[in-house]
């Protein structure tokens, strides 16, 4: 197999191009492309013969390059339009079809769309992003309205509640998450105690570690970290499940059968979540106290009995209630966003992945936003 090559001869009536070797992409056709292009420009005004007697094999790219050279000027192109083999000599039988096919499909195309300058593009993206954000918020709020209407319809006729589905989702997003939520809170409680121990020891106020653990775990960390974990675990699962049903047209099938996807898919998830997140928050709070108490006992010699009395003395029920009250709201936000993003999936599996990511980011953002709102609210109430 010899590399693709060509030789040029200037004769009385024009140029003669003698192609030799293997005219295929694998045999270095790319290397002579530039040379051939330059020749094509030079040969514009003259007649051209292409002699293929030295060509061993040829592929479509080879045929295309030869036809391109032949048709470099309009005069030759006109002749070649009538006869695809015009100007070619010694064409082997097997390559006539190839040359003809190449002649019929010789058309340069713009492959990369002209995109304009980078600065304008950036401005455009900023503008589009802002507009998208506004629309996204509007759509989310309108979906929230839809969910509320659906919830009202179902709750006013409780027979339409899908209990099996609700219980299934309670197990899936609640029961199956207890271990991870409990373990996480235990460790968080322990970490807070350790940190408190080092800092408070400097002031000789080690005993206040009980208040530190009690207030942070019960009021904020228990519920917030549980919500964050559940947003990552169940919120994304909602999006993925509903989104893949959307992709496989299962949602369309449901609507065609007269089953309301809101009642069948969204509300059971929402209701299950609103019930299990407070339960998980309770577990998280207790495990956090146990973790913190254990560290206080082992590290700072605060006995469990003392830890408990002090907790009862100082940590009023309010702190615990403040934490628990937030849980259903977080649950509501996480499940509405998870289901909404699932319903937004369309087209391809790539979209599914994108919306799952968006779902998690949006729920985390919303949960933290709500938490900040609650903090201000309770501060105003002096709780």
């Amino acid at each position: 197999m010899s590399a693709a090559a060509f030789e040029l001869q200037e004769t009385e009536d024009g140029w003669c191009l003698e192609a030799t070797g293997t005219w295929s992409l694998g045999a270095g056709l790319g290397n002579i492309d530039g040379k051939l292009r330059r020749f094509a420009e030079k040969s514009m005004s003259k007649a051209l013969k292409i002699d293929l007697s030295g060509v061993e094999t040829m592929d479509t790219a080879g045929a295309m390059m030869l036809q391109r050279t032949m048709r470099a000027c309009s005069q030759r192109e006109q002749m070649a339009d009538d006869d695809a083999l015009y100007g070619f000599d010694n064409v082997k039988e097997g390559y006539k079809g190839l040359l003809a096919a190449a002649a019929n499909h010789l058309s340069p195309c713009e492959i990369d769309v002209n995109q304009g300058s980078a600065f304008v593009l950036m401005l455009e993206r900023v503008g589009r992003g802002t507009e998208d954000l506004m629309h996204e918020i509007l759509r989310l709020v309108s979906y929230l309205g839809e969910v509320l209407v659906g919830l009202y319809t179902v709750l006013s006729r409780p027979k339409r509640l899908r209990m099996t589905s609700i219980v299934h989702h309670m197990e899936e997003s609640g029961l199956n998450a207890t271990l991870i939520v409990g373990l996480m809170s235990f460790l968080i409680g322990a970490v807070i105690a350790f940190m408190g121990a080092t800092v408070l020891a400097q002031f000789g106020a080690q005993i206040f570690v009980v208040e530190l653990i009690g207030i942070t775990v019960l009021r904020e960390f228990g519920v917030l970290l549980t919500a964050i974990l559940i947003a990552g675990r169940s919120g994304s699962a909602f999006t993925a499940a509903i989104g893949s049903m959307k992709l496989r047209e299962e949602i369309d099938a449901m609507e065609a059968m007269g089953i309301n996807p809101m009642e069948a898919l969204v509300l059971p998830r929402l209701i299950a979540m609103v019930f299990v997140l407070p339960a998980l928050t309770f577990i998280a709070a207790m495990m956090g106290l146990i973790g913190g108490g254990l560290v206080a006992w082992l590290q700072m010699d605060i006995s469990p009995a003392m830890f408990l009395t002090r907790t009862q003395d100082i940590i009023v029920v309010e702190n615990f209630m403040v934490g628990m009250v937030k849980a259903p709201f977080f649950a509501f936000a996480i499940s509405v966003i998870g289901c909404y993003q699932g319903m937004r999936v369309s087209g391809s599996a790539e979209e599914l992945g994108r919306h799952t990511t968006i779902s998690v980011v949006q729920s985390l953002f919303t949960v933290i936003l709500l938490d900040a709102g609650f903090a201000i609210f309770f501060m105003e109430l002096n709780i």
Partner: protein
Amino acid sequence: MTARGEKGDPIIEIKKLTTGFGSQIIHQDLDLTVKRGEILGIVGGSGTGKSVLLKAIIGLIKPRSGAIRIFGEDVLSMNDRDHREIDRRLGVLFQDGALFSAMTVAQNVIAPLREHLNLSSELQQEIASMKITLSGLPLDAATKYPSELSGGMRKRAGLARALAMDPDIVFLDEPTAGLDPIGAAKFDDLIISLKESLGLTVFMVTHDLDSLHRACDRVAVLAEKKVRAIGPLEEVRKNDHPWIQEYFSGPRGRAALASSVQEQDRSGDREATVE
């Protein structure tokens, strides 16, 4: 591309191929030979392993035992580098095109060129646009994304990508499934014309009886883990295997036969009037 062999030489030889998943055996001692320059249609009921056979030949599934020779070389005992050399000479059209969704059609076609060859971007674009029009797509489809194309156009774009490296053999997995009859007939014509102009060998898994009549030079029937019958359609039809009888002599089989006979008559008439 090394020297082309003669038309009719065996280009793929499969000997005593056994494949399976877990305890399930899909093929047992299957023999099949594909000849250079032919369009071979593979038919068989659901679950007879047509697509598995295709995947075994192109190396996506490892067979339990047996031998597969492509271009006379044993591909099963080959190292990865040699296998990639063979892969470059094969083009595959998957069922729904399997286009890369993040790229435009043109970028899809260029992808294998860019991966394997060092070409100027001008030449890459020229080759891509040629393959795109060869596959029967309008040029403005080049800048579209796969999600913007119809099913038939996605198949054509997939074919353009399969042809990008000028393969010797093209594997088509149900190329006409999901196309309307007009689109399917056009696709058949496209395959026939590509075979003739580019000298392709085509290995086509299909359920489409019209495709078998119009396009295929030979037909192989998979049943009971083996190739039960192989040959030109007329011969295979005479086989008395019950599935084959039901397949070709059922209502749809007869309809496809009738339409292909009609068409031959029409083209015969045309020739007669020309004379």
